[in-house]
Protein backbone atom coordinates (compact mmCIF):
# COMPACT_ATOMS: atom_id res chain seq x y z
CA UNK A 1 0.00 0.00 0.00
CA UNK A 2 1.27 3.40 -0.90
CA UNK A 3 -1.08 5.10 1.52
CA UNK A 4 1.30 4.94 4.42
CA UNK A 5 4.08 6.97 2.92
CA UNK A 6 2.85 10.53 2.96
CA UNK A 7 -0.05 10.56 5.27
CA UNK A 8 1.35 11.15 8.69
CA UNK A 9 3.50 14.16 9.33
CA UNK A 10 4.03 13.15 12.94
CA UNK A 11 5.28 10.02 14.58
CA UNK A 12 7.33 8.94 11.63
CA UNK A 13 10.06 7.48 13.83
CA UNK A 14 7.51 5.51 15.77
CA UNK A 15 5.95 4.22 12.60
CA UNK A 16 9.26 2.81 11.54
CA UNK A 17 10.05 1.45 14.96
CA UNK A 18 6.77 -0.34 15.38
CA UNK A 19 7.24 -4.06 15.36
CA UNK A 20 4.30 -6.48 15.39
CA UNK A 21 5.47 -8.11 18.62
CA UNK A 22 5.88 -4.76 20.32
CA UNK A 23 2.47 -3.72 19.09
CA UNK A 24 0.91 -6.89 20.46
CA UNK A 25 2.49 -6.29 23.84
CA UNK A 26 1.23 -2.72 23.74
CA UNK A 27 -2.23 -3.97 22.89
CA UNK A 28 -2.18 -6.36 25.81
CA UNK A 29 -1.14 -3.52 28.08
CA UNK A 30 -3.95 -1.43 26.65
CA UNK A 31 -6.54 -4.15 27.16
CA UNK A 32 -5.49 -4.32 30.79
CA UNK A 33 -5.54 -0.59 31.16
CA UNK A 34 -8.95 0.00 29.69
CA UNK A 35 -10.77 -0.90 32.85
CA UNK A 36 -13.93 1.03 33.64
CA UNK A 37 -12.69 4.51 34.31
CA UNK A 38 -15.38 6.26 36.29
CA UNK A 39 -14.59 7.55 39.77
CA UNK A 40 -11.21 6.01 39.61
CA UNK A 41 -7.77 7.36 39.45
CA UNK A 42 -6.14 6.34 36.23
CA UNK A 43 -2.72 7.01 37.69
CA UNK A 44 -0.47 4.23 36.56
CA UNK A 45 -3.15 2.68 34.38
CA UNK A 46 -0.94 3.00 31.36
CA UNK A 47 2.16 2.03 33.28
CA UNK A 48 3.77 0.28 30.33
CA UNK A 49 3.39 3.30 28.17
CA UNK A 50 6.59 5.29 28.19
CA UNK A 51 5.45 8.46 26.48
CA UNK A 52 4.32 10.94 27.52
CA UNK A 53 5.55 10.82 31.11
CA UNK A 54 2.73 10.59 33.62
CA UNK A 55 2.08 13.36 36.06
CA UNK A 56 4.52 13.22 38.96
CA UNK A 57 2.11 14.18 41.71
CA UNK A 58 -0.82 11.92 42.58
CA UNK A 59 -3.84 12.73 40.43
CA UNK A 60 -6.62 14.54 42.21
CA UNK A 61 -9.86 12.64 42.59
CA UNK A 62 -11.35 12.13 39.14
CA UNK A 63 -14.59 14.10 38.88
CA UNK A 64 -17.77 12.26 37.99
CA UNK A 65 -19.31 12.73 34.57
CA UNK A 66 -22.23 14.52 36.18
CA UNK A 67 -19.87 16.99 37.81
CA UNK A 68 -18.12 17.63 34.47
CA UNK A 69 -21.45 18.18 32.70
CA UNK A 70 -22.57 20.57 35.46
CA UNK A 71 -19.31 22.49 35.20
CA UNK A 72 -19.61 22.85 31.43
CA UNK A 73 -23.15 24.12 31.97
CA UNK A 74 -21.92 26.67 34.50
CA UNK A 75 -19.28 27.91 32.06
CA UNK A 76 -21.93 28.20 29.36
CA UNK A 77 -24.58 29.96 31.40
CA UNK A 78 -22.55 32.29 33.61
CA UNK A 79 -18.89 32.07 32.60
CA UNK A 80 -18.15 30.41 35.92
CA UNK A 81 -14.37 30.44 36.32
CA UNK A 82 -14.28 28.07 39.28
CA UNK A 83 -16.15 25.52 37.18
CA UNK A 84 -13.76 26.12 34.31
CA UNK A 85 -10.78 25.66 36.65
CA UNK A 86 -12.10 22.20 37.56
CA UNK A 87 -12.59 21.30 33.90
CA UNK A 88 -9.10 22.56 33.17
CA UNK A 89 -7.60 20.52 36.01
CA UNK A 90 -9.22 17.38 34.65
CA UNK A 91 -8.94 17.80 30.89
CA UNK A 92 -5.91 20.01 30.20
CA UNK A 93 -3.33 17.39 31.30
CA UNK A 94 -5.15 14.70 29.33
CA UNK A 95 -5.45 16.82 26.22
CA UNK A 96 -1.76 17.65 26.46
CA UNK A 97 -0.91 13.99 26.98
CA UNK A 98 -2.98 13.07 23.94
CA UNK A 99 -1.26 15.70 21.78
CA UNK A 100 2.20 14.57 22.90
CA UNK A 101 1.32 10.96 22.25
CA UNK A 102 0.51 11.99 18.72
CA UNK A 103 3.91 13.58 18.26
CA UNK A 104 3.61 17.20 19.40
CA UNK A 105 6.64 18.62 21.21
CA UNK A 106 6.06 19.68 24.81
CA UNK A 107 5.90 23.42 24.05
CA UNK A 108 3.70 22.91 21.02
CA UNK A 109 1.45 20.57 23.01
CA UNK A 110 1.12 23.31 25.65
CA UNK A 111 0.09 25.86 23.03
CA UNK A 112 -2.35 23.53 21.32
CA UNK A 113 -3.83 22.51 24.67
CA UNK A 114 -4.38 26.19 25.45
CA UNK A 115 -6.19 26.60 22.13
CA UNK A 116 -8.33 23.55 22.86
CA UNK A 117 -9.30 24.72 26.34
CA UNK A 118 -10.03 28.23 25.06
CA UNK A 119 -12.37 26.64 22.52
CA UNK A 120 -14.01 24.74 25.38
CA UNK A 121 -14.58 28.04 27.19
CA UNK A 122 -15.90 29.80 24.12
CA UNK A 123 -18.05 27.01 22.71
CA UNK A 124 -19.46 25.71 25.99
CA UNK A 125 -22.95 27.10 25.14
CA UNK A 126 -23.05 24.76 22.13
CA UNK A 127 -22.37 21.66 24.21
CA UNK A 128 -25.35 19.30 24.44
CA UNK A 129 -25.05 16.56 27.08
CA UNK A 130 -27.60 14.47 25.20
CA UNK A 131 -25.26 14.20 22.24
CA UNK A 132 -21.95 13.43 23.89
CA UNK A 133 -20.10 13.35 27.18
CA UNK A 134 -17.76 16.26 27.94
CA UNK A 135 -14.83 13.93 27.17
CA UNK A 136 -16.17 13.07 23.72
CA UNK A 137 -16.90 16.70 22.94
CA UNK A 138 -13.46 17.83 24.07
CA UNK A 139 -11.75 14.95 22.27
CA UNK A 140 -13.36 16.15 19.02
CA UNK A 141 -12.10 19.69 19.64
CA UNK A 142 -8.58 18.42 20.39
CA UNK A 143 -8.57 16.11 17.39
CA UNK A 144 -9.68 18.91 15.05
CA UNK A 145 -7.21 21.38 16.52
CA UNK A 146 -4.40 18.90 16.04
CA UNK A 147 -5.40 18.28 12.43
CA UNK A 148 -5.53 22.04 11.80
CA UNK A 149 -2.14 22.62 13.38
CA UNK A 150 -0.16 19.63 12.24
CA UNK A 151 -1.68 18.77 8.89
CA UNK A 152 -2.66 22.17 7.60
CA UNK A 153 -5.55 20.81 5.66
CA UNK A 154 -7.55 23.25 3.64
CA UNK A 155 -10.64 22.02 5.42
CA UNK A 156 -12.58 24.70 7.22
CA UNK A 157 -12.15 24.71 10.97
CA UNK A 158 -14.49 21.89 11.94
CA UNK A 159 -17.09 22.81 14.46
CA UNK A 160 -17.49 20.17 17.17
CA UNK A 161 -21.22 20.92 17.16
CA UNK A 162 -21.61 20.78 13.40
CA UNK A 163 -25.05 19.20 12.97
CA UNK A 164 -23.66 17.41 9.94
CA UNK A 165 -21.53 15.32 12.29
CA UNK A 166 -24.18 14.78 14.95
CA UNK A 167 -26.54 11.85 15.13
CA UNK A 168 -30.24 12.54 14.72
CA UNK A 169 -31.94 12.43 18.10
CA UNK A 170 -34.02 9.50 16.86
CA UNK A 171 -30.90 7.60 15.79
CA UNK A 172 -29.32 7.60 19.21
CA UNK A 173 -29.09 4.07 20.54
CA UNK A 174 -31.65 4.41 23.29
CA UNK A 175 -33.48 7.58 23.98
CA UNK A 176 -34.07 6.71 27.62
CA UNK A 177 -30.36 6.32 28.18
CA UNK A 178 -28.41 9.46 27.79
CA UNK A 179 -25.08 9.63 26.08
CA UNK A 180 -23.14 9.82 29.33
CA UNK A 181 -24.38 6.52 30.68
CA UNK A 182 -23.85 5.08 27.26
CA UNK A 183 -20.17 6.01 27.41
CA UNK A 184 -19.74 4.37 30.79
CA UNK A 185 -20.81 1.17 29.11
CA UNK A 186 -18.59 1.87 26.16
CA UNK A 187 -15.54 1.98 28.44
CA UNK A 188 -16.44 -1.51 29.63
CA UNK A 189 -16.98 -2.75 26.09
CA UNK A 190 -13.60 -1.42 24.95
CA UNK A 191 -11.98 -3.17 27.90
CA UNK A 192 -13.61 -6.42 26.79
CA UNK A 193 -12.39 -6.27 23.19
CA UNK A 194 -10.01 -9.05 22.14
CA UNK A 195 -6.43 -7.71 22.16
CA UNK A 196 -6.05 -7.67 18.38
CA UNK A 197 -9.15 -5.50 18.05
CA UNK A 198 -8.15 -3.21 20.91
CA UNK A 199 -4.80 -2.81 19.19
CA UNK A 200 -6.54 -1.52 16.05
CA UNK A 201 -8.42 1.12 18.05
CA UNK A 202 -5.26 2.19 19.84
CA UNK A 203 -3.34 2.59 16.58
CA UNK A 204 -6.15 4.65 15.07
CA UNK A 205 -6.88 6.95 18.02
CA UNK A 206 -3.48 7.21 19.64
CA UNK A 207 -1.08 6.85 16.74
CA UNK A 208 -2.92 8.60 13.99
CA UNK A 209 -2.99 5.58 11.70
CA UNK A 210 -5.70 5.10 9.13
CA UNK A 211 -6.67 1.49 8.47
CA UNK A 212 -4.49 1.55 5.36
CA UNK A 213 -1.52 2.67 7.45
CA UNK A 214 -2.16 0.05 10.09
CA UNK A 215 -2.09 -2.64 7.41
CA UNK A 216 1.21 -1.47 5.98
CA UNK A 217 2.94 -0.82 9.30
CA UNK A 218 1.90 -4.16 10.82
CA UNK A 219 2.42 -5.91 7.47
CA UNK A 220 -1.09 -7.32 7.67
CA UNK A 221 -3.30 -7.77 4.62
CA UNK A 222 -5.63 -4.79 4.28
CA UNK A 223 -8.59 -7.17 4.39
CA UNK A 224 -7.48 -8.47 7.81
CA UNK A 225 -7.27 -4.97 9.23
CA UNK A 226 -10.66 -4.04 7.80
CA UNK A 227 -12.30 -7.14 9.22
CA UNK A 228 -10.75 -6.62 12.68
CA UNK A 229 -11.93 -3.02 12.72
CA UNK A 230 -15.40 -4.02 11.56
CA UNK A 231 -15.54 -6.71 14.24
CA UNK A 232 -14.53 -4.19 16.88
CA UNK A 233 -17.20 -1.74 15.72
CA UNK A 234 -19.79 -4.53 15.54
CA UNK A 235 -18.97 -5.59 19.10
CA UNK A 236 -19.36 -2.05 20.35
CA UNK A 237 -22.64 -1.82 18.48
CA UNK A 238 -24.11 -5.06 19.90
CA UNK A 239 -23.08 -3.98 23.35
CA UNK A 240 -25.27 -0.89 22.99
CA UNK A 241 -28.19 -2.81 21.62
CA UNK A 242 -28.22 -5.76 24.03
CA UNK A 243 -27.34 -4.14 27.27
CA UNK A 244 -30.32 -1.87 27.76
Amino acid at each position, binding site marked *: MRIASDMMPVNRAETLALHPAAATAAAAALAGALAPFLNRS*IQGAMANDSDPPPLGAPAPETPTLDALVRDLGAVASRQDRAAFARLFAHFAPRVKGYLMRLGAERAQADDLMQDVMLTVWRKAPGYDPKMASPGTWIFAIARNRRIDALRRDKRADLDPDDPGLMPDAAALPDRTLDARLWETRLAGAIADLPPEQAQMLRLAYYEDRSHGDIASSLRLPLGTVKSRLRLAVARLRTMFENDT
Partner: protein
Amino acid sequence: MKAHSMTDPAQILAHSPAHIPAHIPDEWLLDHAAGATPEPVAVLVEAHLALSAPARATYARLAAVGGVLLEQQSPADLAPDAFARMLARIDASPAPVAAIAPAATAGLLPAAVSAYAGPSIDALDWRRVVRGVEQATLKLGRPSPYELSLLRIAAGKSIPQHTHEGDELLLVLAGSFEDGRAGYARGDVCAADASVDHAPVADRATDCLCLHVANAPIKLTGPFGRFLNPLLKLARR
Protein backbone atom coordinates in the same frame (compact mmCIF):
# COMPACT_ATOMS: atom_id res chain seq x y z
CA MET B 1 -32.27 17.66 7.26
CA LYS B 2 -34.59 18.96 4.60
CA ALA B 3 -36.89 16.58 2.79
CA HIS B 4 -36.17 16.40 -0.90
CA SER B 5 -38.77 16.48 -3.59
CA MET B 6 -40.19 13.07 -4.32
CA THR B 7 -40.03 13.79 -8.01
CA ASP B 8 -36.25 13.59 -7.82
CA PRO B 9 -35.39 10.13 -9.20
CA ALA B 10 -32.62 9.78 -6.65
CA GLN B 11 -35.15 10.28 -3.90
CA ILE B 12 -37.55 7.83 -5.44
CA LEU B 13 -34.72 5.29 -5.44
CA ALA B 14 -33.76 6.25 -1.90
CA HIS B 15 -37.31 5.65 -0.70
CA SER B 16 -38.15 2.58 -2.74
CA PRO B 17 -38.49 -0.52 -0.57
CA ALA B 18 -35.78 -2.29 -2.55
CA HIS B 19 -33.19 0.37 -1.85
CA ILE B 20 -30.91 -0.17 1.10
CA PRO B 21 -29.00 3.01 1.90
CA ALA B 22 -25.32 2.24 1.44
CA HIS B 23 -23.29 3.64 4.29
CA ILE B 24 -19.55 3.82 4.06
CA PRO B 25 -17.72 0.80 5.56
CA ASP B 26 -17.03 1.25 9.28
CA GLU B 27 -13.25 1.46 8.96
CA TRP B 28 -13.52 4.78 7.13
CA LEU B 29 -15.79 6.24 9.83
CA LEU B 30 -13.41 5.00 12.50
CA ASP B 31 -10.41 6.61 10.75
CA HIS B 32 -12.28 9.91 10.76
CA ALA B 33 -13.48 9.72 14.35
CA ALA B 34 -9.91 8.96 15.41
CA GLY B 35 -8.52 11.88 13.41
CA ALA B 36 -6.46 9.59 11.18
CA THR B 37 -8.17 10.33 7.87
CA PRO B 38 -6.23 11.96 5.04
CA GLU B 39 -7.79 15.22 3.83
CA PRO B 40 -9.53 14.01 0.63
CA VAL B 41 -11.13 11.06 2.41
CA ALA B 42 -12.15 13.33 5.30
CA VAL B 43 -14.01 15.57 2.87
CA LEU B 44 -15.93 12.61 1.48
CA VAL B 45 -16.69 11.20 4.93
CA GLU B 46 -17.96 14.58 6.19
CA ALA B 47 -20.16 15.02 3.12
CA HIS B 48 -21.49 11.49 3.60
CA LEU B 49 -22.22 12.12 7.28
CA ALA B 50 -24.13 15.27 6.37
CA LEU B 51 -26.35 13.20 4.07
CA SER B 52 -26.69 9.86 5.85
CA ALA B 53 -28.45 9.38 9.20
CA PRO B 54 -27.28 5.75 9.63
CA ALA B 55 -23.68 6.84 9.11
CA ARG B 56 -24.12 9.57 11.74
CA ALA B 57 -25.48 7.06 14.24
CA THR B 58 -22.43 4.81 13.84
CA TYR B 59 -20.13 7.82 13.87
CA ALA B 60 -21.53 8.95 17.23
CA ARG B 61 -20.42 5.64 18.76
CA LEU B 62 -16.95 5.94 17.30
CA ALA B 63 -16.66 9.54 18.45
CA ALA B 64 -17.51 8.32 21.95
CA VAL B 65 -14.56 5.91 21.77
CA GLY B 66 -12.37 9.01 21.49
CA GLY B 67 -13.97 10.42 24.63
CA VAL B 68 -13.39 7.23 26.57
CA LEU B 69 -9.77 7.07 25.46
CA LEU B 70 -9.23 10.72 26.41
CA GLU B 71 -10.48 9.90 29.91
CA GLN B 72 -8.00 7.01 29.96
CA GLN B 73 -5.12 9.15 28.75
CA SER B 74 -2.21 9.52 31.18
CA PRO B 75 -2.23 13.17 32.25
CA ALA B 76 0.86 15.12 31.14
CA ASP B 77 2.35 17.62 33.56
CA LEU B 78 1.43 21.19 32.72
CA ALA B 79 3.65 24.25 32.74
CA PRO B 80 3.33 25.92 36.19
CA ASP B 81 1.74 29.01 34.65
CA ALA B 82 -0.62 27.06 32.40
CA PHE B 83 -3.84 28.13 34.10
CA ALA B 84 -2.68 31.72 34.53
CA ARG B 85 -1.96 31.86 30.80
CA MET B 86 -5.37 30.36 30.17
CA LEU B 87 -7.10 33.05 32.22
CA ALA B 88 -5.16 35.76 30.42
CA ARG B 89 -6.35 34.39 27.08
CA ILE B 90 -9.91 34.16 28.35
CA ASP B 91 -9.78 37.79 29.49
CA ALA B 92 -8.55 38.78 26.04
CA SER B 93 -11.28 36.90 24.20
CA PRO B 94 -14.99 37.61 23.86
CA ALA B 95 -17.52 35.88 26.12
CA PRO B 96 -18.76 32.39 25.21
CA VAL B 97 -21.47 32.39 22.57
CA ALA B 98 -23.76 29.75 21.22
CA ALA B 99 -22.55 28.97 17.72
CA ILE B 100 -24.95 29.50 14.88
CA ALA B 101 -25.50 26.09 13.38
CA PRO B 102 -24.05 26.00 9.88
CA ALA B 103 -26.34 24.67 7.18
CA ALA B 104 -24.57 21.42 6.46
CA THR B 105 -26.72 20.35 3.54
CA ALA B 106 -28.39 23.50 2.28
CA GLY B 107 -27.75 22.97 -1.42
CA LEU B 108 -26.62 20.30 -3.80
CA LEU B 109 -23.16 20.19 -2.29
CA PRO B 110 -22.67 19.56 1.42
CA ALA B 111 -20.59 22.29 3.08
CA ALA B 112 -17.58 19.97 3.26
CA VAL B 113 -17.53 19.74 -0.54
CA SER B 114 -18.41 23.31 -1.46
CA ALA B 115 -15.37 24.50 0.51
CA TYR B 116 -13.32 22.74 -2.19
CA ALA B 117 -15.54 23.07 -5.25
CA GLY B 118 -16.29 26.78 -4.94
CA PRO B 119 -19.59 28.48 -5.66
CA SER B 120 -20.28 26.93 -9.07
CA ILE B 121 -19.35 23.44 -10.16
CA ASP B 122 -19.82 24.50 -13.77
CA ALA B 123 -16.83 26.79 -13.37
CA LEU B 124 -14.57 23.85 -12.54
CA ASP B 125 -12.10 22.41 -15.00
CA TRP B 126 -14.11 19.45 -16.33
CA ARG B 127 -12.28 16.88 -18.40
CA ARG B 128 -13.71 14.04 -20.38
CA VAL B 129 -12.79 10.58 -19.08
CA VAL B 130 -14.78 8.51 -21.56
CA ARG B 131 -17.87 9.47 -23.52
CA GLY B 132 -20.57 10.58 -21.07
CA VAL B 133 -18.21 10.75 -18.10
CA GLU B 134 -16.47 13.94 -16.99
CA GLN B 135 -14.20 14.60 -14.04
CA ALA B 136 -13.11 17.79 -12.25
CA THR B 137 -10.19 17.43 -9.87
CA LEU B 138 -10.46 19.46 -6.66
CA LYS B 139 -7.41 21.21 -5.20
CA LEU B 140 -6.20 19.98 -1.82
CA GLY B 141 -4.55 21.87 1.02
CA ARG B 142 -1.59 19.51 1.03
CA PRO B 143 -0.39 16.69 -1.20
CA SER B 144 -2.04 13.33 -0.63
CA PRO B 145 -1.86 9.89 -2.20
CA TYR B 146 -5.61 10.25 -2.62
CA GLU B 147 -7.15 12.34 -5.35
CA LEU B 148 -10.41 14.22 -4.72
CA SER B 149 -12.67 14.96 -7.66
CA LEU B 150 -16.21 15.44 -8.81
CA LEU B 151 -17.45 12.95 -11.38
CA ARG B 152 -20.39 13.55 -13.67
CA ILE B 153 -21.93 10.56 -15.42
CA ALA B 154 -24.48 11.56 -18.04
CA ALA B 155 -27.94 9.99 -17.77
CA GLY B 156 -27.82 6.39 -18.94
CA LYS B 157 -24.04 6.44 -19.48
CA SER B 158 -21.53 4.28 -17.66
CA ILE B 159 -17.96 3.99 -16.52
CA PRO B 160 -16.56 0.99 -18.41
CA GLN B 161 -16.15 -2.30 -16.52
CA HIS B 162 -13.10 -1.96 -14.27
CA THR B 163 -11.33 -3.02 -11.12
CA HIS B 164 -9.04 -1.06 -8.78
CA GLU B 165 -5.45 -1.13 -7.66
CA GLY B 166 -6.25 0.79 -4.49
CA ASP B 167 -9.28 2.17 -2.73
CA GLU B 168 -12.09 4.01 -4.44
CA LEU B 169 -15.00 5.76 -2.74
CA LEU B 170 -17.89 7.27 -4.68
CA LEU B 171 -20.43 9.42 -2.85
CA VAL B 172 -23.58 10.20 -4.81
CA LEU B 173 -24.52 13.89 -4.62
CA ALA B 174 -27.25 13.95 -7.29
CA GLY B 175 -28.98 11.42 -9.48
CA SER B 176 -28.24 7.77 -8.94
CA PHE B 177 -26.31 4.84 -10.38
CA GLU B 178 -26.12 1.10 -10.04
CA ASP B 179 -23.10 -1.13 -10.48
CA GLY B 180 -24.55 -4.64 -10.62
CA ARG B 181 -24.01 -5.05 -6.87
CA ALA B 182 -26.37 -2.36 -5.57
CA GLY B 183 -28.11 0.91 -6.40
CA TYR B 184 -26.75 4.16 -5.02
CA ALA B 185 -28.73 7.36 -4.45
CA ARG B 186 -27.88 10.76 -2.95
CA GLY B 187 -25.93 10.26 0.26
CA ASP B 188 -24.90 6.68 -0.52
CA VAL B 189 -21.29 5.57 -0.78
CA CYS B 190 -20.02 2.92 -3.16
CA ALA B 191 -16.73 1.58 -1.79
CA ALA B 192 -14.55 -0.48 -4.11
CA ASP B 193 -11.09 -1.99 -4.01
CA ALA B 194 -9.11 -4.68 -5.80
CA SER B 195 -11.79 -7.24 -4.98
CA VAL B 196 -14.47 -5.32 -6.85
CA ASP B 197 -14.94 -5.43 -10.61
CA HIS B 198 -17.83 -3.16 -11.60
CA ALA B 199 -19.31 -0.82 -14.18
CA PRO B 200 -21.35 2.00 -12.62
CA VAL B 201 -24.30 2.99 -14.83
CA ALA B 202 -26.17 6.25 -14.25
CA ASP B 203 -29.95 6.27 -14.03
CA ARG B 204 -31.50 6.89 -17.45
CA ALA B 205 -33.54 9.89 -16.30
CA THR B 206 -30.88 12.16 -14.78
CA ASP B 207 -27.19 12.90 -14.80
CA CYS B 208 -25.37 11.53 -11.79
CA LEU B 209 -22.98 13.73 -9.82
CA CYS B 210 -20.55 12.00 -7.46
CA LEU B 211 -17.69 12.91 -5.21
CA HIS B 212 -14.83 10.57 -6.05
CA VAL B 213 -11.80 9.64 -3.95
CA ALA B 214 -9.16 7.17 -5.11
CA ASN B 215 -5.53 6.43 -4.46
CA ALA B 216 -4.74 4.46 -7.59
CA PRO B 217 -5.91 4.41 -11.19
CA ILE B 218 -8.71 2.08 -12.18
CA LYS B 219 -7.97 -0.87 -14.43
CA LEU B 220 -10.38 -1.65 -17.24
CA THR B 221 -11.41 -5.26 -17.47
CA GLY B 222 -14.02 -5.32 -20.25
CA PRO B 223 -13.23 -6.96 -23.64
CA PHE B 224 -12.31 -3.65 -25.31
CA GLY B 225 -11.41 -1.79 -22.19
CA ARG B 226 -8.02 -3.41 -21.80
CA PHE B 227 -6.81 -1.49 -24.85
CA LEU B 228 -7.99 1.78 -23.38
CA ASN B 229 -6.21 1.45 -20.03
CA PRO B 230 -3.36 3.79 -20.90
CA LEU B 231 -5.85 6.49 -21.90
CA LEU B 232 -8.03 6.39 -18.85
CA LYS B 233 -7.11 8.23 -15.74
CA LEU B 234 -9.67 8.24 -12.96
CA ALA B 235 -6.87 8.88 -10.52
CA ARG B 236 -3.41 10.06 -11.36
CA ARG B 237 -0.48 7.64 -11.65
